């Protein structure tokens, strides 16, 4: 029993680590889509940021410079998406996919050109990473039943970016529902005409939203390469951008439900890792592939059947053209 509890605790603990990039990306997507820009390029932005962060960390040995580089690259791509979709009213899905494909190839090409390791970046030492922060007293409390486990395992011992990600959720909520920017953001995704006639620039708002989106994807990518791992590996995002997008839709474009959806996907992922090699009576060991596929299968099932009526922002995906 205690063993099971401990395993569960470790799974939940792992959930936070796995869900961090999902949460960040989901919030990024939320800003974009609330403003009326569909962003299927979350994946590409995150991948580009991961590469930029790992490359800068390898060269400068500074985690903070790496974070800055990750965010800068991601914001640049977000603005490129904006330039195509907002200024030139291009198709938002096409632009997003183009960014994903571009980044997927470009990171490998640049990686080979700069580091000659088959597309990987050199491993960086802990001084150039975001490493786990142990909260005061975590060691001492570790053996206290229940509370000790919760405190030392769940709360303490994550790296800075995990905490940042989960603080960004209430921050996003506050921005979207309690600030002027949020009011306008919600309005521009629903009815850009209303915003335009109120004397506010539709493009300006959408660019600002893309900026927020880029920043958050940048943090997510940085987390992947120099906090969760210690180097960039080709295609290391492995579809997490899409899962984040799914989680955001699952959360009906609202911050807290979107975060919960991310945690659910994260938890499945964490459980899948724990289940590897577990022998089930009669059936025998569960095939690794099946377990690895579980989160994706569940994503499809949940999205297809359980999401209920998800009403997207009305103007989402539609370029704004002034009347006539």
């Amino acid at each position, binding site marked *: 029993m205690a063993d099971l509890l401990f395993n569960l605790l470790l799974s939940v603990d792992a959930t936070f680590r796995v869900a961090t990039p999902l949460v960040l990306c989901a919030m990024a997507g939320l800003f974009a889509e609330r403003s009326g820009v569909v962003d299927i390029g979350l994946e590409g932005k995150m991948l580009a940021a991961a590469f930029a962060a790992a490359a800068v960390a390898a060269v400068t040995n500074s985690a903070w410079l790496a974070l800055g580089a990750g965010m800068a690259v991601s914001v640049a791509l977000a603005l490129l998406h904006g330039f195509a979709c907002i200024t030139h009213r291009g198709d938002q899905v096409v632009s997003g996919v183009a960014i994903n494909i571009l980044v997927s190839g470009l990171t490998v090409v640049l990686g080979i050109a700069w580091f000659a390791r088959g597309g990987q970046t050199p491993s960086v030492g802990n001084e150039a990473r975001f490493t786990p922060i142990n909260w005061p007293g975590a060691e001492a409390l570790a053996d206290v039943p229940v509370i000790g486990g919760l405190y030392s395992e769940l709360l303490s011992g994550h790296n800075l970016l995990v905490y940042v990600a989960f603080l960004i959720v209430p921050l996003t909520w506050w921005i979207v*529902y*309690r*600030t*002027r*920017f*949020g*009011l*306008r953001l*919600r*309005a521009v995704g*629903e*009815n850009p*005409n*209303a*915003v*335009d*006639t*109120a*004397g*506010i620039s539709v493009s300006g708002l959408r660019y600002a939203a893309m900026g927020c989106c880029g920043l958050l994807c940048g943090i997510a990518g940085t987390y992947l390469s120099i906090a969760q791992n210690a180097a960039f590996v080709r295609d290391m995002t492995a579809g997490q951008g899409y899962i984040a997008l799914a989680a955001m839709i699952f959360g009906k474009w609202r911050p807290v439900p979107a975060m919960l959806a991310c945690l659910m996907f994260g938890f499945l992922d964490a459980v899948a890792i724990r289940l590897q090699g577990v022998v089930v009576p009669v059936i025998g060991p569960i095939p690794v592939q099946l377990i690895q596929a579980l989160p994706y299968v569940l994503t499809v099932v949940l999205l297809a059947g359980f999401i209920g009526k998800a009403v997207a922002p*009305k103007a989402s995906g539609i370029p704004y053209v*002034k*009347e*006539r």
Partner: protein
Amino acid sequence: MSDPEIQNQDDVRSLGTDAPPAIELRDINKSFGPVRANKNVCLSVKPGAIHGIIGENGAGKSTLMSILYGFYEADSGEILIGGKPATIRSSRDAISAGIGMVHQHFMLVDNMSVVENIMLGAESGAILTSSVAAARAELERLERDYSLDVDPDALAGDLPVGQQQRVEILKALYRGAEILILDEPTGVLTPQETDQLFRILDSLRKQGVTIVLITHKLREIMAVTDDVSVMRGGEMIAHRETAQTNKEELAELMVGRKVLLSLDKAAPQAGETVLAVEGLTFVDKAGVPRVDNISFSVRAGEIVGIAGVSGNGQSELLELLSGVRPVTAGGFSLMGERFSASRRLDPAKMRDLKVAHVPEDRLRSGLVRTFAAEESAVLGYHRDAAYNGAVFTKRDAIQQDCATKMTDFDVRPPNPKLKTANFSGGNQQKLVLAREISRDPRLLLVGQPTRGVDIGAIEFIHRNIVAMRDAGSAVLLVSVELDEIMSLSDRILVMFEGRIVGEVPAHEADERLLGLMMANAAPERSEAAG
């Protein structure tokens, strides 16, 4: 009365000499490519007056107001607000010059509350809490001063249209508008809501607000305005004091020729029953009965009009009868052939039975925008032997056919090769009508025959519908325009929430009675009328 055409611009500027005019436009020009939407337009609006601007679709009214509200910039010309030159490049400039606009299509965010909608773009700070409090207080004051009641916490999308319009007016007033422009404000309102709106406008005028009312409805101009300006073909044709003009003169100015506003038609010669509807019901996906157990009949040689505020099941009824939607329960008979949930009517079968259908929304279901006119003119009849050879279609026959229809129905320009989208709304509608009428149908189902159509074309379309009736066809007319229903129909049925709530013979109908029935507020009428 002098010839209205020879009103010169000096006259225009001499209107309202006591105080500087609230709005003065001088020689405004605006072109879109080769189209000159506004040509040397001058306008002077007295402060504290209701000034009507009337004109056909495409006369340049909306362009002019869009220039005033900063949507477009004029190519040349001057704008003076309260006697001072103003540069208006954006809506923001217009708002700060004290101009507010109530658009034809409301500019509301449906899933936000009334308060949020009103303060959008005019928040008092970066954090909403204080803005909301300020907006609420100001809103209460405005509601008190102008007696504009709206629940500030209701979601904008949940409000009825009349209330949504008030929110739009409040939005403008909240931004300190002293000049209020209303673009076709009554298109979506019931007659009662229209009366309420006019009362609101009157009280705004008493408080010193200047109002510009854009419309193509002569009745409204006569009912509320102090002055009226007429536009035609991008030019300002005339200015009148409303008290010194009349509908006939204004209609003539708008169209450029004499227009018969009332339709002379002989008494109907009703024959055998062509359409009999019995307990027809349609339930939509959400389980809402859109058409609820309706029964009525239409006989040859009569026009039956279906009145109702848009969205009360008329569209669905028309789609059921034309085989576009499947029937849920009940059924109907066309020329004695019965259709029901188990025996579906499809549009091809419908045409075989000589039933013609002019759909409500010509661009969605009547025409294909990107087709040449000649192609649009055979849609639905494209299997006809006259248009087809053994393998290929007969392009020449189709073109010839379209050219004939264009001459018969005065479609301009009469060019069968021109893309459908490049015709004006009225000409597109004439093309659809030509296609459907020219085969002598036994029954014509027609929805909103004159939506977005100019007054001149309306006259033409109405005449053709009556001519069809006189030739012995049955006509079922669905329209949200009461004037149209009243002038065309021989019998009027009123729909409310999917049910027929009353039937009135045309000669007994008046606007007030129909309006009350449309809002389902009429006193119970005896069945004798039906």
